[in-house]
Protein backbone atom coordinates (compact mmCIF):
# COMPACT_ATOMS: atom_id res chain seq x y z
CA UNK A 1 0.00 0.00 0.00
CA UNK A 2 1.64 3.30 -1.09
CA UNK A 3 1.33 6.74 0.54
CA UNK A 4 -1.14 7.81 -2.19
CA UNK A 5 -3.59 5.05 -1.25
CA UNK A 6 -3.29 5.98 2.39
CA UNK A 7 -4.10 9.63 1.61
CA UNK A 8 -7.14 8.63 -0.48
CA UNK A 9 -8.54 6.47 2.35
CA UNK A 10 -7.93 9.30 4.84
CA UNK A 11 -9.66 11.88 2.62
CA UNK A 12 -12.63 9.53 2.11
CA UNK A 13 -12.88 8.97 5.86
CA UNK A 14 -12.83 12.72 6.53
CA UNK A 15 -15.48 13.50 3.92
CA UNK A 16 -17.74 10.79 5.38
CA UNK A 17 -17.33 12.35 8.78
CA UNK A 18 -18.23 15.77 7.35
CA UNK A 19 -21.38 14.34 5.75
CA UNK A 20 -22.34 12.77 9.07
CA UNK A 21 -21.79 16.07 10.84
CA UNK A 22 -23.94 18.00 8.33
CA UNK A 23 -26.68 15.37 8.56
CA UNK A 24 -26.64 15.55 12.35
CA UNK A 25 -26.77 19.37 12.29
CA UNK A 26 -29.76 19.52 9.91
CA UNK A 27 -32.98 20.15 11.89
CA UNK A 28 -35.34 17.17 11.63
CA UNK A 29 -38.43 19.08 10.33
CA UNK A 30 -36.38 20.51 7.43
CA UNK A 31 -35.03 17.08 6.53
CA UNK A 32 -38.54 15.65 6.65
CA UNK A 33 -39.93 18.40 4.44
CA UNK A 34 -37.25 17.86 1.75
CA UNK A 35 -37.76 14.12 1.94
CA UNK A 36 -41.52 14.57 1.48
CA UNK A 37 -41.14 16.38 -1.88
CA UNK A 38 -41.15 14.37 -5.08
CA UNK A 39 -38.55 14.97 -7.80
CA UNK A 40 -41.28 16.51 -9.91
CA UNK A 41 -42.19 18.99 -7.18
CA UNK A 42 -38.54 19.99 -6.71
CA UNK A 43 -38.21 20.46 -10.48
CA UNK A 44 -41.27 22.74 -10.46
CA UNK A 45 -39.79 24.79 -7.61
CA UNK A 46 -36.72 25.45 -9.73
CA UNK A 47 -38.51 26.03 -13.05
CA UNK A 48 -41.55 27.87 -11.63
CA UNK A 49 -40.04 31.36 -11.26
CA UNK A 50 -38.68 31.26 -14.81
CA UNK A 51 -42.02 30.16 -16.23
CA UNK A 52 -43.78 32.88 -14.25
CA UNK A 53 -41.40 35.56 -15.58
CA UNK A 54 -41.76 34.25 -19.13
CA UNK A 55 -45.54 34.40 -18.89
CA UNK A 56 -45.51 37.86 -17.32
CA UNK A 57 -42.94 39.47 -19.63
CA UNK A 58 -43.53 37.70 -22.97
CA UNK A 59 -46.79 35.80 -23.21
CA UNK A 60 -49.13 38.20 -21.39
CA UNK A 61 -48.12 41.31 -23.42
CA UNK A 62 -48.48 39.27 -26.62
CA UNK A 63 -52.03 38.19 -25.75
CA UNK A 64 -52.85 41.76 -24.63
CA UNK A 65 -51.53 43.15 -27.94
CA UNK A 66 -53.67 40.68 -29.91
CA UNK A 67 -56.71 41.84 -27.93
CA UNK A 68 -55.88 45.54 -28.46
CA UNK A 69 -55.42 45.00 -32.19
CA UNK A 70 -59.20 44.47 -32.49
CA UNK A 71 -60.02 47.77 -30.75
CA UNK A 72 -59.60 51.50 -31.39
CA UNK A 73 -57.74 51.96 -28.12
CA UNK A 74 -55.57 55.07 -27.72
CA UNK A 75 -52.94 54.98 -24.99
CA UNK A 76 -53.06 58.76 -24.48
CA UNK A 77 -56.78 58.59 -23.65
CA UNK A 78 -56.86 56.03 -20.88
CA UNK A 79 -60.23 57.12 -19.56
CA UNK A 80 -62.00 56.45 -22.85
CA UNK A 81 -63.43 52.94 -23.11
CA UNK A 82 -61.88 51.14 -26.13
CA UNK A 83 -64.39 50.13 -28.77
CA UNK A 84 -64.32 46.66 -30.40
CA UNK A 85 -63.88 47.23 -34.16
CA UNK A 86 -63.11 43.69 -35.33
CA UNK A 87 -60.68 43.37 -38.24
CA UNK A 88 -60.87 47.04 -39.32
CA UNK A 89 -57.28 47.83 -38.16
CA UNK A 90 -55.91 44.92 -40.19
CA UNK A 91 -57.98 45.96 -43.19
CA UNK A 92 -56.65 49.54 -43.01
CA UNK A 93 -53.03 48.46 -42.70
CA UNK A 94 -53.17 45.91 -45.50
CA UNK A 95 -54.74 48.32 -47.97
CA UNK A 96 -52.46 51.28 -47.15
CA UNK A 97 -50.05 51.98 -50.00
CA UNK A 98 -47.66 53.90 -47.68
CA UNK A 99 -47.22 50.83 -45.48
CA UNK A 100 -46.69 48.78 -48.63
CA UNK A 101 -43.82 51.14 -49.53
CA UNK A 102 -42.39 50.80 -46.01
CA UNK A 103 -42.43 47.03 -46.43
CA UNK A 104 -40.51 47.39 -49.68
CA UNK A 105 -37.95 49.66 -48.01
CA UNK A 106 -37.55 47.04 -45.26
CA UNK A 107 -37.15 44.27 -47.86
CA UNK A 108 -34.46 46.29 -49.68
CA UNK A 109 -32.61 46.88 -46.42
CA UNK A 110 -32.98 43.26 -45.26
CA UNK A 111 -31.91 41.57 -48.49
CA UNK A 112 -28.89 43.76 -49.23
CA UNK A 113 -27.54 43.84 -45.67
CA UNK A 114 -27.74 40.04 -45.42
CA UNK A 115 -26.10 39.47 -48.83
CA UNK A 116 -23.25 41.91 -48.12
CA UNK A 117 -22.70 40.81 -44.54
CA UNK A 118 -22.56 37.13 -45.48
CA UNK A 119 -20.19 37.69 -48.41
CA UNK A 120 -17.83 40.07 -46.61
CA UNK A 121 -18.12 38.29 -43.24
CA UNK A 122 -17.30 34.89 -44.72
CA UNK A 123 -14.38 36.28 -46.74
CA UNK A 124 -12.93 38.03 -43.68
CA UNK A 125 -13.32 34.89 -41.56
CA UNK A 126 -11.60 32.82 -44.24
CA UNK A 127 -8.71 35.29 -44.38
CA UNK A 128 -8.40 35.59 -40.59
CA UNK A 129 -8.41 31.79 -40.31
CA UNK A 130 -5.15 31.68 -42.28
CA UNK A 131 -2.35 31.93 -39.77
CA UNK A 132 -0.39 35.13 -40.26
CA UNK A 133 1.49 37.67 -38.15
CA UNK A 134 -0.78 40.08 -36.31
CA UNK A 135 -3.81 37.80 -36.76
CA UNK A 136 -5.23 38.54 -33.29
CA UNK A 137 -4.72 42.29 -33.65
CA UNK A 138 -6.64 42.34 -36.94
CA UNK A 139 -9.47 40.30 -35.41
CA UNK A 140 -9.78 42.86 -32.60
CA UNK A 141 -9.74 45.81 -35.02
CA UNK A 142 -12.38 44.21 -37.27
CA UNK A 143 -14.65 43.41 -34.33
CA UNK A 144 -14.58 46.98 -32.95
CA UNK A 145 -17.64 48.42 -34.84
CA UNK A 146 -19.86 45.72 -33.39
CA UNK A 147 -19.04 46.87 -29.86
CA UNK A 148 -20.19 50.45 -30.44
CA UNK A 149 -23.63 51.75 -29.59
CA UNK A 150 -25.95 52.19 -32.62
CA UNK A 151 -26.59 55.80 -31.56
CA UNK A 152 -22.85 56.52 -31.64
CA UNK A 153 -22.46 54.75 -34.99
CA UNK A 154 -25.38 56.74 -36.41
CA UNK A 155 -23.88 60.08 -35.36
CA UNK A 156 -20.41 59.07 -36.47
CA UNK A 157 -21.59 58.11 -39.97
CA UNK A 158 -23.66 61.27 -40.23
CA UNK A 159 -20.37 63.17 -40.13
CA UNK A 160 -18.73 60.77 -42.59
CA UNK A 161 -21.62 61.31 -45.03
CA UNK A 162 -21.42 65.14 -44.87
CA UNK A 163 -21.15 66.40 -48.48
CA UNK A 164 -18.68 69.18 -47.62
CA UNK A 165 -16.46 67.73 -44.88
CA UNK A 166 -17.34 64.01 -44.89
CA UNK A 167 -14.62 61.46 -45.43
CA UNK A 168 -16.96 59.06 -47.27
CA UNK A 169 -17.81 61.60 -49.97
CA UNK A 170 -14.14 62.54 -50.25
CA UNK A 171 -13.10 58.87 -50.78
CA UNK A 172 -15.86 58.25 -53.35
CA UNK A 173 -14.88 61.50 -55.09
CA UNK A 174 -11.21 60.48 -55.06
CA UNK A 175 -11.91 57.16 -56.80
CA UNK A 176 -14.65 58.24 -59.19
CA UNK A 177 -13.47 61.75 -60.01
CA UNK A 178 -16.79 63.26 -58.94
CA UNK A 179 -17.02 66.40 -56.88
CA UNK A 180 -17.52 65.23 -53.22
CA UNK A 181 -20.17 67.89 -52.59
CA UNK A 182 -22.15 66.93 -55.71
CA UNK A 183 -24.01 64.10 -53.96
CA UNK A 184 -25.65 63.69 -50.58
CA UNK A 185 -25.87 60.14 -49.27
CA UNK A 186 -28.47 60.91 -46.59
CA UNK A 187 -30.42 63.54 -48.51
CA UNK A 188 -30.97 61.98 -51.93
CA UNK A 189 -33.91 59.64 -52.51
CA UNK A 190 -31.88 57.17 -54.58
CA UNK A 191 -28.84 57.12 -52.25
CA UNK A 192 -30.42 57.18 -48.77
CA UNK A 193 -31.54 53.49 -48.79
CA UNK A 194 -27.97 52.49 -49.69
CA UNK A 195 -26.49 54.71 -46.99
CA UNK A 196 -28.26 52.73 -44.24
CA UNK A 197 -27.26 49.43 -45.90
CA UNK A 198 -23.58 50.52 -45.87
CA UNK A 199 -23.65 51.52 -42.19
CA UNK A 200 -25.40 48.35 -41.03
CA UNK A 201 -22.98 46.25 -43.07
CA UNK A 202 -20.03 48.12 -41.56
CA UNK A 203 -21.37 47.59 -38.06
CA UNK A 204 -22.57 43.97 -38.20
CA UNK A 205 -20.24 42.19 -40.65
CA UNK A 206 -17.86 41.42 -37.74
CA UNK A 207 -20.66 39.47 -36.06
CA UNK A 208 -21.13 37.27 -39.13
CA UNK A 209 -17.35 36.99 -39.40
CA UNK A 210 -17.05 35.72 -35.81
CA UNK A 211 -19.71 33.05 -36.32
CA UNK A 212 -18.07 31.94 -39.59
CA UNK A 213 -14.69 31.88 -37.87
CA UNK A 214 -16.09 29.56 -35.20
CA UNK A 215 -17.36 27.31 -38.02
CA UNK A 216 -14.03 27.35 -39.86
CA UNK A 217 -12.08 26.55 -36.70
CA UNK A 218 -14.36 23.61 -35.92
CA UNK A 219 -13.31 21.79 -39.12
CA UNK A 220 -10.70 19.18 -38.18
CA UNK A 221 -7.39 19.33 -40.09
CA UNK A 222 -7.44 15.61 -40.90
CA UNK A 223 -10.32 16.15 -43.35
CA UNK A 224 -8.16 18.51 -45.40
CA UNK A 225 -5.21 16.12 -45.07
CA UNK A 226 -7.34 13.26 -46.41
CA UNK A 227 -8.45 15.49 -49.29
CA UNK A 228 -4.80 16.38 -50.02
CA UNK A 229 -3.94 12.68 -50.17
CA UNK A 230 -6.82 12.19 -52.61
CA UNK A 231 -5.31 15.03 -54.66
CA UNK A 232 -8.34 17.29 -54.33
CA UNK A 233 -7.58 20.81 -55.55
CA UNK A 234 -7.87 23.81 -53.18
CA UNK A 235 -11.03 24.95 -54.96
CA UNK A 236 -12.62 21.51 -54.61
CA UNK A 237 -11.64 21.39 -50.93
CA UNK A 238 -13.27 24.78 -50.44
CA UNK A 239 -16.57 23.78 -52.06
CA UNK A 240 -16.81 20.20 -50.75
CA UNK A 241 -15.37 20.62 -47.23
CA UNK A 242 -15.26 24.25 -46.10
CA UNK A 243 -18.60 25.54 -47.41
CA UNK A 244 -20.79 22.55 -46.32
CA UNK A 245 -19.23 22.47 -42.86
CA UNK A 246 -19.59 26.20 -42.28
CA UNK A 247 -23.12 26.32 -43.71
CA UNK A 248 -25.01 25.63 -40.40
CA UNK A 249 -23.04 28.44 -38.74
CA UNK A 250 -23.67 30.75 -41.66
CA UNK A 251 -27.39 29.99 -41.59
CA UNK A 252 -27.48 30.76 -37.89
CA UNK A 253 -25.82 34.12 -38.56
CA UNK A 254 -28.36 34.86 -41.31
CA UNK A 255 -31.23 33.98 -38.94
CA UNK A 256 -29.92 36.31 -36.25
CA UNK A 257 -29.21 39.17 -38.64
CA UNK A 258 -32.48 38.67 -40.52
CA UNK A 259 -34.61 38.94 -37.38
CA UNK A 260 -32.51 41.81 -36.03
CA UNK A 261 -32.69 43.79 -39.29
CA UNK A 262 -36.40 43.18 -39.74
CA UNK A 263 -36.91 45.21 -36.56
CA UNK A 264 -34.04 47.67 -37.16
CA UNK A 265 -34.81 51.01 -35.53
CA UNK A 266 -32.10 52.92 -33.64
CA UNK A 267 -29.43 53.13 -36.31
CA UNK A 268 -31.80 54.30 -39.05
CA UNK A 269 -33.55 56.84 -36.79
CA UNK A 270 -30.17 58.32 -35.90
CA UNK A 271 -28.99 58.42 -39.51
CA UNK A 272 -31.96 59.47 -41.60
CA UNK A 273 -34.98 59.53 -39.28
CA UNK A 274 -36.84 57.68 -42.04
CA UNK A 275 -36.20 60.34 -44.70
CA UNK A 276 -35.86 61.85 -47.21
CA UNK A 277 -39.64 61.63 -47.50
CA UNK A 278 -40.27 58.09 -46.36
CA UNK A 279 -37.61 56.32 -48.46
CA UNK A 280 -35.83 54.88 -45.43
CA UNK A 281 -38.86 54.60 -43.18
CA UNK A 282 -38.61 50.95 -42.17
CA UNK A 283 -41.61 49.17 -40.66
CA UNK A 284 -40.35 49.52 -37.09
CA UNK A 285 -39.98 53.31 -37.47
CA UNK A 286 -43.45 53.56 -38.96
CA UNK A 287 -44.82 51.38 -36.16
CA UNK A 288 -43.24 53.64 -33.52
CA UNK A 289 -44.79 56.71 -35.21
CA UNK A 290 -48.24 55.12 -35.19
CA UNK A 291 -47.93 53.98 -31.57
CA UNK A 292 -46.17 56.89 -29.86
CA UNK A 293 -46.61 59.95 -32.10
CA UNK A 294 -50.13 59.46 -33.43
CA UNK A 295 -51.13 57.38 -30.36
CA UNK A 296 -53.17 54.91 -32.45
CA UNK A 297 -52.45 52.02 -30.07
CA UNK A 298 -55.02 49.58 -31.48
CA UNK A 299 -53.83 50.19 -35.04
CA UNK A 300 -50.16 49.89 -33.98
CA UNK A 301 -50.97 46.63 -32.16
CA UNK A 302 -52.42 45.15 -35.36
CA UNK A 303 -49.31 46.34 -37.22
CA UNK A 304 -47.07 44.68 -34.60
CA UNK A 305 -49.00 41.42 -34.89
CA UNK A 306 -48.54 41.41 -38.69
CA UNK A 307 -44.78 41.87 -38.25
CA UNK A 308 -44.67 39.25 -35.50
CA UNK A 309 -46.43 36.61 -37.62
CA UNK A 310 -44.07 37.34 -40.53
CA UNK A 311 -40.92 36.99 -38.41
CA UNK A 312 -42.32 33.91 -36.64
CA UNK A 313 -43.18 32.24 -39.97
CA UNK A 314 -39.75 32.99 -41.42
CA UNK A 315 -37.99 31.79 -38.27
CA UNK A 316 -39.97 28.50 -38.38
CA UNK A 317 -38.84 27.81 -41.95
CA UNK A 318 -35.35 28.75 -41.07
CA UNK A 319 -35.05 26.56 -37.98
CA UNK A 320 -36.36 23.63 -40.03
CA UNK A 321 -33.75 24.26 -42.75
CA UNK A 322 -31.03 24.62 -40.12
CA UNK A 323 -31.93 21.25 -38.55
CA UNK A 324 -31.85 19.62 -41.98
CA UNK A 325 -28.38 21.00 -42.70
CA UNK A 326 -27.17 19.82 -39.27
CA UNK A 327 -28.52 16.29 -39.90
CA UNK A 328 -26.51 15.93 -43.13
Amino acid at each position, binding site marked *: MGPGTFQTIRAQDMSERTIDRVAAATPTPVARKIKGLSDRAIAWIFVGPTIFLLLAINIFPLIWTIRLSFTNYKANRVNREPEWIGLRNYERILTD*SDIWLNMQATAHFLIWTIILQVLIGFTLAWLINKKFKGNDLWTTIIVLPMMLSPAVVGNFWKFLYQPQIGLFNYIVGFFTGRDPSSFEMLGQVNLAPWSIVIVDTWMWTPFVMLICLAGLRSIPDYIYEAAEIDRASKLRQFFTITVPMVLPFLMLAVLFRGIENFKMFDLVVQLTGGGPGSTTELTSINLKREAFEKWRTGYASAYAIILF*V*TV*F*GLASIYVKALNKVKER
Partner: protein
Amino acid sequence: MTKFFDGLLKMRRGPWEMLATIIIAVGVFMLMQPFVIWAFTYSFITTLVGTVMFIIVSHFPE
Protein backbone atom coordinates in the same frame (compact mmCIF):
# COMPACT_ATOMS: atom_id res chain seq x y z
CA MET B 1 -44.21 14.03 -56.80
CA THR B 2 -46.39 10.93 -56.23
CA LYS B 3 -44.54 10.35 -52.94
CA PHE B 4 -45.33 13.94 -51.91
CA PHE B 5 -49.09 13.56 -52.56
CA ASP B 6 -49.06 10.11 -50.95
CA GLY B 7 -47.48 11.66 -47.83
CA LEU B 8 -50.14 14.38 -47.80
CA LEU B 9 -52.92 11.82 -47.94
CA LYS B 10 -51.34 9.71 -45.20
CA MET B 11 -50.89 12.79 -43.00
CA ARG B 12 -47.09 12.53 -42.84
CA ARG B 13 -45.04 15.36 -41.35
CA GLY B 14 -42.49 15.83 -44.16
CA PRO B 15 -44.81 16.77 -47.08
CA TRP B 16 -47.17 18.77 -44.87
CA GLU B 17 -44.29 20.77 -43.44
CA MET B 18 -43.06 21.37 -46.97
CA LEU B 19 -46.50 22.67 -47.98
CA ALA B 20 -46.67 24.96 -44.91
CA THR B 21 -43.18 26.26 -45.68
CA ILE B 22 -44.17 27.09 -49.27
CA ILE B 23 -47.29 28.94 -48.05
CA ILE B 24 -45.22 31.00 -45.54
CA ALA B 25 -42.61 31.83 -48.19
CA VAL B 26 -45.32 32.92 -50.65
CA GLY B 27 -46.95 35.04 -47.90
CA VAL B 28 -43.70 36.83 -47.04
CA PHE B 29 -42.96 37.42 -50.71
CA MET B 30 -46.47 38.85 -51.19
CA LEU B 31 -45.90 41.19 -48.21
CA MET B 32 -42.69 42.67 -49.58
CA GLN B 33 -43.06 42.50 -53.36
CA PRO B 34 -43.24 45.82 -55.26
CA PHE B 35 -45.59 44.69 -58.07
CA VAL B 36 -49.29 44.50 -57.06
CA ILE B 37 -51.08 45.82 -53.99
CA TRP B 38 -53.70 43.04 -53.87
CA ALA B 39 -50.89 40.56 -53.14
CA PHE B 40 -49.85 42.79 -50.22
CA THR B 41 -53.45 42.85 -48.98
CA TYR B 42 -53.71 39.04 -48.86
CA SER B 43 -50.13 38.48 -47.64
CA PHE B 44 -50.92 38.46 -43.92
CA ILE B 45 -53.66 35.86 -44.11
CA THR B 46 -51.43 33.67 -46.29
CA THR B 47 -48.50 33.90 -43.83
CA LEU B 48 -50.82 33.32 -40.87
CA VAL B 49 -52.37 30.20 -42.45
CA GLY B 50 -48.89 28.88 -43.27
CA THR B 51 -47.54 29.55 -39.78
CA VAL B 52 -50.50 27.99 -37.94
CA MET B 53 -50.37 25.03 -40.34
CA PHE B 54 -46.63 24.65 -39.68
CA ILE B 55 -47.20 24.53 -35.91
CA ILE B 56 -49.95 21.91 -36.28
CA VAL B 57 -48.26 19.65 -38.85
CA SER B 58 -44.95 19.59 -36.98
CA HIS B 59 -46.77 17.27 -34.52
CA PHE B 60 -47.73 14.78 -37.26
CA PRO B 61 -45.90 11.41 -37.32
CA GLU B 62 -42.75 11.12 -39.48
